[in-house]
């Protein structure tokens, strides 16, 4: 139904002759009526219930279909509420089953109390699922403990502390794209402006450049604030006995259940502004079967130290990594980063010097800035391993951490560039079901040993990775 609105609006605003409008209008009306009839019949025939440890769904008014899902095959239950649905007081429930050939089951428009209860009942089955615990005995809905809740002030802090530079660069490129598209329609005017722009650039120098940079940073700040408010409004983070539940969103209210055993990797990051507020941004990466890929990466900003420690201890047990030796990336990494991100862009932009030789100062500043950036990158590039887990640190200005357990390893890639062979330096990429961890430019012997060990671990561990 929602898809029809643009069509109707389009027709209303289009310029047609009178007769055409009538015919088109008649078709639209017919389509609307048929859709209404279909929808009413569909919903009247849509019935589900739970019986004998099974979820039974009957749908279809012409051809009746009965779907039976054993409760222990349900992997995930999430709820969703768009603005429209919030207005009407309904929610949709998404049921994710094991097996990639199964279609995701989505029940739209359940009234809120029914949806909440259904998802609670199904969640309690997922809760008790791990094979180790024996039969699934369902009693009361699972106990939930509210671990964290974001207030509006928190949202403000989060919005300010997001990674603006990256956003600004992305928006800058969007701006260029937009300009290119416009250019195609206004070729002559564009050529004129381009000429003016080059004259402008070669004459105005610093002031304009700096104000452009500030402008883009402000735009990205605004974008971050709006995005934060919409995505993370009233974020509530609950802990159940074997899973987490995260509820958030302003326009679309999302409700996601994350069983611990599905979590493949935990990422958390901090940065200069984040440090000021004492907050971290957390990404939880979970394995999902083919269709429900949108819940694979769950972002949760505004976490405090204690939340990070709580997450780590829930998912990985007591910290066996902090006392392990810190293995750092080789100095080669610094050189490479400086060349690739500093010298090469400077060389590519050197034609600017033809416009105005004063641009050499800009290029020098860039190279110096990238020198510091590369040093920071090297400083933050290290990892620690224990017999079953690894924690990797990375980043330059922001500081990223990634942690995963070895039995979740799916795929390994050892790579070495011919330029660094003589330094005995190589990289290792460890892939899991929902992400990867990269160990860049480390001692080649460690990389090989880790590669062999992780293969051994994956081949002998009988722990379930999902």
């Amino acid at each position, binding site marked *: 139904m929602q898809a029809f609105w643009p069509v109707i609006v389009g027709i209303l605003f289009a310029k047609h002759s009178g007769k055409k409008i009538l015919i088109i209008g008649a078709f639209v009306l017919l389509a609307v009526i048929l859709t209404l009839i279909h929808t009413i019949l569909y919903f009247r025939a849509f019935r589900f219930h739970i019986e004998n440890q099974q979820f039974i769904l009957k749908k279809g008014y012409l051809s009746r279909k009965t779907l039976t899902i054993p409760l222990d095959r349900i992997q995930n239950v999430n709820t969703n509420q768009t603005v429209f649905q919030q207005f009407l007081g309904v929610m949709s429930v998404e049921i994710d089953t094991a097996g990639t050939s199964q279609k995701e089951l989505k029940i739209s428009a359940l009234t809120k109390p029914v949806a909440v209860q259904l998802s609670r009942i199904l969640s309690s089955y997922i809760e008790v699922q791990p094979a180790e615990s024996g039969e699934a005995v369902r009693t009361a809905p699972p106990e939930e403990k509210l671990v964290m809740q974001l207030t509006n002030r928190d949202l403000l802090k989060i919005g300010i502390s997001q990674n603006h530079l990256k956003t600004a660069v992305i928006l800058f490129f969007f701006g260029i794209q937009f300009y290119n598209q416009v250019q195609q329609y206004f070729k002559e005017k564009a050529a004129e402006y381009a000429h003016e722009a080059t004259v402008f650039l070669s004459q105005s120098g610093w002031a304009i450049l700096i104000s452009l940079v500030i402008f883009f940073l402000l735009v990205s700040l605004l974008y971050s604030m709006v995005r934060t408010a919409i995505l993370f409004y009233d974020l509530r983070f609950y802990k159940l006995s074997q899973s987490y539940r995260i509820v958030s969103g302003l326009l679309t209210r999302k409700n996601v259940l994350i069983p611990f055993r599905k979590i493949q990797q935990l990422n958390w990051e901090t940065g200069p502004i984040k440090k000021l507020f004492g907050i971290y941004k957390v990404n939880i990466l979970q394995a999902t079967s083919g269709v429900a890929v949108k819940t694979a990466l769950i972002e949760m900003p505004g976490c405090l130290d204690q939340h990070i420690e709580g997450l780590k201890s829930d998912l990985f047990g007591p910290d066996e990594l902090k006392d392990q030796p810190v293995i750092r990336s080789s100095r080669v990494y610094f050189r490479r980063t400086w060349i690739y991100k500093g010298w090469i862009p400077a060389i590519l932009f050197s034609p600017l010097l033809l416009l105005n030789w004063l641009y050499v100062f800009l290029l020098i500043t860039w190279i110096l800035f990238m020198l510091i950036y590369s040093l920071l990158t090297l400083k933050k590039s290290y990892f620690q391993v224990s017999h079953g887990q690894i924690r990797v640190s990375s980043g330059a200005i922001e500081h990223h951490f990634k942690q995963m357990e070895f039995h979740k390893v799916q795929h390994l890639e050892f790579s070495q560039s011919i330029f660094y062979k003589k330094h005995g330096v190589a990289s290792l990429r460890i892939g899991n079901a929902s992400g990867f961890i990269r160990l860049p430019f480390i001692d080649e012997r460690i990389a090989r040993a880790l590669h062999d060990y992780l293969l051994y671990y994956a*081949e002998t561990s009988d722990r379930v990775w*999902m």
Partner: protein
Amino acid sequence: MNPDFTNSIILPENLPQLEGTGFNPVDRKYIWILYIRYFFWTAVLIPIAWIFPVILKEKAPDFLLWALIGLVVISMIASMVVTKIGFTCRGYLIREKDIAYKRGLIRYKLTSIPFNRIQHVELNQGVLAKRMGLATIKVYTAGSSSDDLEIPGLPIETAGQIREFLTGKISADE
């Protein structure tokens, strides 16, 4: 380490038609498919290089056209030389519990997947590969598609045997 754990190399006799220990090379004919790819890209890039100065019109110096074409041809030749030298580095290895594939001279990569992580195996043949009797084996895991292990340039019979063998391993695990 578990003393009962073994992971000796499966000798090629178990996969008939190939000899030798260590990594098994791919079919030598495959290099022609790689060469053809380079020719194709050159054939695409040269017209583009030719159009480029035309768009810029008076702003472009005369030699730009030839410089661009020269650049395209030189990079093609360089890529072909590097590929030829690095071709002998290519190889795959099937052991008791995992499969590995290595390739690359300038950017050397060694990829491994344990058998118990394989989701499914595919055998693909492009148009060119079909005519040469070659195929590609693709091994999928639960990870993202960039993590799939791909062994191109295998003779079609070998590829078939590998696929059967790996598929057998998947069902043995379940």
